[in-house]
């Protein structure tokens, strides 16, 4: 993905992901991730995306310490750092 596009998507995606993770319940998040997984796989065909999102959905289905930790990380990360990571993931060949 070209850098400018990855950058733009990361900037748009970060506040949405942050809002979504901090405001939604574990169960609703798990459901949404399952839906997203199907859509993302249809677009990318990437097995790693499929596995990663299945993992994420399972974590939110289980709830407890795992989701607490994820929320703590999302709460404490700086937007600059998170955007850099997202951009890096999106640009990954």
């Amino acid at each position: 993905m070209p850098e400018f596009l990855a950058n733009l998507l990361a900037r748009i995606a970060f506040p949405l992901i942050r809002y979504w993770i901090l405001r939604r319940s574990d169960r609703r998040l798990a459901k949404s991730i399952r839906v997203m997984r199907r859509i993302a796989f249809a677009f990318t065909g990437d097995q790693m995306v499929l596995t990663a999102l299945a993992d994420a959905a399972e974590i939110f289905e289980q709830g407890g310490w795992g989701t607490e930790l994820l929320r703590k990380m999302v709460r404490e990360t700086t937007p600059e750092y998170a955007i850099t990571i997202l951009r890096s993931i999106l640009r990954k060949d």
Partner: protein
Amino acid sequence: MKKLDQVRIGIIGCGRIADLNILGYLDHPKCELVAVCDLNQELAKSRMKEWGAKKYYTDLEKLVSDPEINAVEILLPHSLHLPAVVSAARAGKHISLQKPMCIELSEGRAMVEEAKQAGVWFRVTENFMFYPPYRMMKQMLDAGEIGDPLSLDIKLGGGAGGWWVPLKTWLWHISPEKCGGTPAVYDDGYHKLSIAKFMLGNIESVKCWLDFTFGVVDIPSLVTWKHKSGQVGVWEVETGVNLMMNHKYYGADEWVEITGTKGVLTATRCTSRLMEIPPLILYKDGRHLAIDDIRDDWGDSFHDAGWHFIDSLIAGTQPDLSGEDGLYLMKFWKAIWRSTCENREVRLEEIKEEKEPANA
């Protein structure tokens, strides 16, 4: 302790790192892989087929009570180490336990006692000590190639990429309760602390500064220490999210340098290949000697660690990295954490084995 004619091993925990820990067991002529065990039945089955094991289990107790097995490799989350070691020791199996040893020092002591009472060999595996360039570095150091050592510098550079590790695995690694410490300086750092001890011996005191990214990942950090024999050590930990690593394994690489009174030894890589230069360089008498005819893949260190365990059981001798060594490295970590929390130099002798109150 009795020598073994053949080691018949069982692998407990079939996750990502097992891909490397298995290497030495698969090609050692005196080792037979009997069984694998994982809670995830699908994974256990696929590992059994992949590695050519005879059987698989999903229950640890069943594996350790298998009479065909005489040794186990334990590759479980840290919080499960104590019950697994106790079960294996009581079943009379020799034990290789993946680092770090435990959450609390008292647990580590319990493991050492259980193994002693059961009359089984016990080691806490740490692969860096078996990385061929580090082994050669140590040999050259001991041979006096750089004179008397003065200092040890370790630099850990983390970057983007790396092989696939399930999110759930990352998550327990960064959970202080599940991991027993921080992900960089404690979990991965155990290797570097082990190398410091391996190269220059026991530690007198430490002084550190740990910063946190995302509130839980201890990067960037700086750990400094003084060896009992007088040398100083420093370990710098940082990561660059856009620094793409030339890797086969994790997106990180290490640079280890020992300065002596008449030369410098530099190991230029370990986990990855950040730079395409010889893995070991000796500088002395105004010249560089590049050593590039040694195995330098990170996987080789796991392979050799496995072989060492098997060779030790066959010879009837204590494998390197005994339980006491594991406990020592845990004390090194505890001193680092205390130094960070209390912002002062901490001597290792201050660290006691009794359970301490939770840190702030």
